[in-house]
């Protein structure tokens, strides 16, 4: 059960490999990776991720603890970056390990749904046309309904 909030990039391959090796008897490992996607307009230059130091770690740990309470997990991991990122860069990842694939999948989806709208991160996009704060999506808020 690990939470890391960091400005520096991380090696997705090494993290996933290390995670899977660390819970060999789990049987099922699910990972989600979020990357900076270029806009429809295709002119995203960079993305700034602001966060709330202190609260971020607390919020992520709370979400993770809730997942551990709801599903049978051998291990879990959340890594989330902040600061300035370029298109194609990895923003964050979650990983879950369980005996059964259903638990691993559901817990990973749960972590993502909560992380999206309950962890204090805000994204600002920089394009040729200026800067804009990414707005939260109503479907992200709606997604939480599945878990209540």
């Amino acid at each position: 059960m690990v939470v890391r909030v960091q400005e520096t990039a991380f090696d997705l391959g090494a993290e996933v490999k290390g995670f899977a090796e660390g819970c060999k008897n789990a049987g099922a490992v699910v990972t989600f990776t979020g990357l900076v996607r270029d806009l429809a307009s295709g002119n995203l230059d960079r993305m700034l991720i602001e966060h709330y130091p202190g609260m971020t770690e607390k919020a992520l740990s709370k979400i993770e603890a809730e997942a551990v309470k709801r599903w049978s997990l051998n291990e879990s991991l959340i890594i989330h970056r902040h600061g300035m990122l370029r298109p194609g860069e990895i923003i964050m990842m979650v990983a879950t390990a369980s005996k059964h694939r259903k638990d691993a999948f559901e817990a990973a989806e749960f972590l993502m749904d909560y992380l999206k709208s309950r962890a204090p991160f805000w994204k600002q996009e920089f394009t040729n046309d200026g800067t804009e704060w990414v707005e939260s999506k109503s479907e992200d808020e709606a997604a939480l309904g599945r878990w209540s």
Partner: protein
Amino acid sequence: MIDVLYFAWVRERIGVPKESVDTQATSVTELVAELSAREERYAMAFSDISALRVAVDQELSEFDAPLQGVREVAFFPPMTGG
């Protein structure tokens, strides 16, 4: 004294990321009213409370949350993590 923090476009509108506020407000709503009465930039940032979220001592809260014993209040737009 309460530390008040602002993030994302709330921070931009208020103009500072953090300030110490000397207040007798007993709830977040009262604090918002007090700040809004102070200066136009606060009034603008708090003009539509439904577009804002608040954390009290680093826990997501409601705007009617009491402020007794609270050390830190933060205002920000809906979060966009992940």
